[in-house]
């Protein structure tokens, strides 16, 4: 079923070329003049920080997004890819991180969904032929899979194999794999690489998106680096040094000036976390947070930073580990407990988790501390909520036409300030900010930074989770770096650099992983 492509001639030397690709979404220029080029029989790694544009570029290739501008040249012919179906038809298959499988159906049924072999009786499916054809595909890849197993009964590694087999059944010329090794054990990774090498021998071009730089050394021929939606460089993997790749990923970005950090925080420890464990998501996380300190949490998406925050805040449970506040052990089983202990959490997605969009400014401000605003029989004291709302608007400089303005009409920066106002009203001392300046324009960002500094001055203890390295470096006293659920480094901010943070953020443990129950 796999057609071995002809030997590369000078015109068709490239299997794929993407040139001058532009793509914007409301408020964000995701890609500017992005390029990518893939040869036959090549494993080409695509790397970059969160938001660099790798996924967007591949989604354009896969027909999920439409480019604003630019060319896609497939085997020498220019193509316009307008739908996922069309991409598949052209031989482009994408294996997403969230696998696109139907868990209740068998392996063979999944592979041939929509193209089921039929018997002569109308509408009746030929199950035997379906299974046979699936076995044929497995042989091509030397896979040991039973086509009649339900997908739900397979390990993640085997499910990925099913997706690869499915791609092959479409005579894929290009296979894009998005973080394929993220959920695999070391043995499974080796098996995956064996399959990838076989595909390479057959002339298939493979795009391997991954953050695991040491792995890329093992499997890829070339590596392309993207940053801020732009193409940076392409290197031969054998000649490239990991430090060099990291420096290309991180670049030198000019950052607008921001108020200086306050002086050294007190030595008093306000929050201590020891040996927090949560399945595979958090492993042995320990750290301490001092009064008046801003502790930056750095790491790639999926590293576990938000998960730590949610556990401390009682939004998720943990299997083992202890939490101490001001030296005393606490058991936080719910956000209600957390707030009682003085912990506030500003979530990543403030529209979903931080605000009640349909309510107005003063109602949101009072939301976490309603006890303070009640009269007898549970009636709300409107005079008090008005007063408090006015106080917060002034103190935080929230731009709103009135206290009665529904928060969904406020700008991102002002919405964020309302959330901060809510937590200040709840008398919280320990504040966890998760991506505090996401989706906020430059001007409002400075105001938020100033607020953070003021809060630290006042003695609040702050954890700031952020994916923007310059932000982390500017705002933190210390930086805690996580990678795949583990704390890989705690650095002093004055000594840390973007490169050193990146190094810790991509540092997988070298120990052999055993599948955990």
């Amino acid at each position, binding site marked *: 079923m796999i057609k071995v492509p002809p030997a590369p001639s000078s015109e068709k030397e490239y299997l794929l070329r993407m040139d001058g690709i532009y793509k914007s979404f409301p408020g964000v220029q995701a890609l500017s003049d992005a390029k990518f080029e893939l040869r036959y029989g090549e494993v080409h790694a695509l790397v970059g920080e969160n938001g660099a544009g790798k996924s967007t570029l591949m989604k354009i290739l896969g027909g999920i997004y439409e480019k604003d501008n630019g060319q896609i040249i497939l085997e020498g012919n220019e193509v316009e890819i307008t739908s*996922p*179906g069309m991409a*598949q038809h052209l031989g482009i298959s994408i294996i997403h*991180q*969230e*696998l*696109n*499988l*139907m*868990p*209740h*159906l068998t392996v063979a*049924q999944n592979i041939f*969904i*929509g193209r*089921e072999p*039929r018997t002569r009786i109308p*509408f*009746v*499916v030929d*199950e035997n032929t379906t299974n046979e054809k699936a076995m044929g595909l497995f042989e091509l890849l030397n896979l040991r899979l039973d086509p009649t197993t339900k*997908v*739900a*009964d*397979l*390990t*993640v590694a*085997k*499910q*990925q194999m099913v997706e690869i087999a499915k791609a092959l059944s479409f005579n894929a010329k290009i296979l894009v794999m998005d*973080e394929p090794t*993220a*959920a695999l054990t070391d043995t499974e990774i080796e098996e995956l690489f064996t399959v990838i090498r076989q595909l390479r021998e057959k002339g298939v071009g493979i795009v391997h998106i991954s953050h695991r730089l040491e792995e890329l050394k093992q499997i890829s021929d070339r590596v392309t680096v993207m940053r801020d939606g732009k193409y940076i460089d392409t290197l031969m993997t054998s000649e490239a040094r990991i430090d060099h790749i990291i420096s290309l990923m991180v670049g030198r970005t000019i950052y607008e000036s921001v108020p200086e950090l306050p002086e050294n925080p007190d030595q008093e420890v306000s929050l201590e976390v020891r040996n927090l464990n949560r*399945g*595979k*998501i958090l492993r042995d996380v320990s750290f301490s947070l001092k009064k008046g300190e801003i502790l930056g949490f750095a790491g790639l*998406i*999926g590293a576990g930073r938000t998960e730590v925050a949610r556990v401390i805040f009682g939004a998720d449970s943990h299997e083992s580990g202890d939490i101490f506040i001001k030296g005393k052990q606490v058991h936080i089983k719910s956000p209600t407990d957390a707030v009682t202990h003085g912990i506030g959490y500003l979530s990543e997605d403030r529209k979903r988790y931080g605000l009640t969009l349909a309510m107005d400014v003063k109602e949101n401000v009072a939301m976490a501390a309603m006890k303070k605003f009640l009269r007898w029989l549970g009636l709300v004291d409107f005079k008090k909520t008005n007063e408090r709302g006015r106080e917060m608007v002034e103190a935080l400089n929230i731009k709103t036409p009135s206290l009665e303005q529904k928060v969904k009409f406020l700008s991102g920066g002002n919405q964020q300030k309302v959330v901060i106002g809510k937590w200040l009203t709840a008398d919280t001392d320990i504040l966890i900010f998760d991506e505090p300046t996401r989706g906020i324009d430059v001007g409002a960002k400075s105001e938020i930074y100033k607020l953070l500094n003021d809060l630290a001055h006042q003695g609040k203890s702050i954890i700031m989770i952020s994916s923007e390295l310059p932000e982390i470096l500017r705002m933190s006293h210390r930086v805690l770096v996580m990678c795949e659920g583990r704390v890989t480094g705690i650095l002093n901010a004055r000594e840390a650099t973007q490169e050193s943070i990146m190094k810790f953020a991509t540092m997988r443990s070298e120990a052999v992983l055993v*599948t955990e*129950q």
Partner: protein
Amino acid sequence: MKSETQTAKAVSHTDEPKTARTLFRSDAMQRIMAFSALIVLAIGFSIASPYFRTFDNFVGILLATAVNGVLGLGVTFIIITSGIDLSVGTVMTFSAVMTGVFITNWHLPIPIGILGGILAGSLAGFINGTVISRMKIPPFIATLGMLNIARGLSLVISDLHPIYFNDTPAFREMAMGSVVGKIIPGFEVPNAVFIMFGAAIIAHLILSRTILGRYTFAIGSNEEATRLSGVNVAAWKTAVYALGGFFAGMGGVLIASRLNSAQPALGFGYELDAIAAVVIGGTSLSGGEGSILGTIIGAFIMSTLTNGLRILSVPQEWQIVVTGGIVILAVFLDILRRRR
């Protein structure tokens, strides 16, 4: 069936040989457990009362299950797609009324009338499917609307009077006569029972062997992945709801034949019994799995229970309470079984 990790989303378990645990969880095991429950009930009631274990009573149970069983067939498909159909009861009545109009009022031949009634039900189902797939209205709401529309139309068309089939005694013979009884004397089981079993066999074949069945499971298991695989999910969903209407139509013809009349005020409440039968039979409301056999067993469990309690002189109101309790218990046991 959602996993907590941020990476791969598909549910997975370690590759293990068929241990006792996987066996316990399998679909076959679920069916065996449901069937055992039925047997236990039957034996229990037989011991409790001699009136239960008579041939006539068993026939009575079979007959009582016939209509609900047929309704349950279509609902099984719909629930496997993780949808729901609240209108099967009133669409059944609507089909019965239309059959009455065709046969009694318009004097059409009986076969045509029956076909017309079933088509009326299918049309209602088709409308449900279209509203759900194209207008993206949630199944609960869409079929709730149809429930009332069908109910209203039944009353309007019949002018609030039942339609009798006295002029055409052959119609009643269809369900209540006994072809088997003529072949094997003393074995007077009404045709309706065999019609139900026949319909169940056909439904089972459709679900397990045809493309419609395959896509029913696929849509219920992961609708988005199915759509991204190039399947016309909207069209197939519509087909599933139309099938639900088809079986509701069949049920309508059956019940009209049983009662020898189309009763326009009937039907409301039948949908809950049909859904209960499907759920007790092991089909999961979250979609992706289920079986016709399970639904039939579920329907029998319900009618056996009702019958047995009645023979033991338990007041009718309490029977309904017990049925409700059984539904909750059955779903709870199923959730436990899945989680372990």
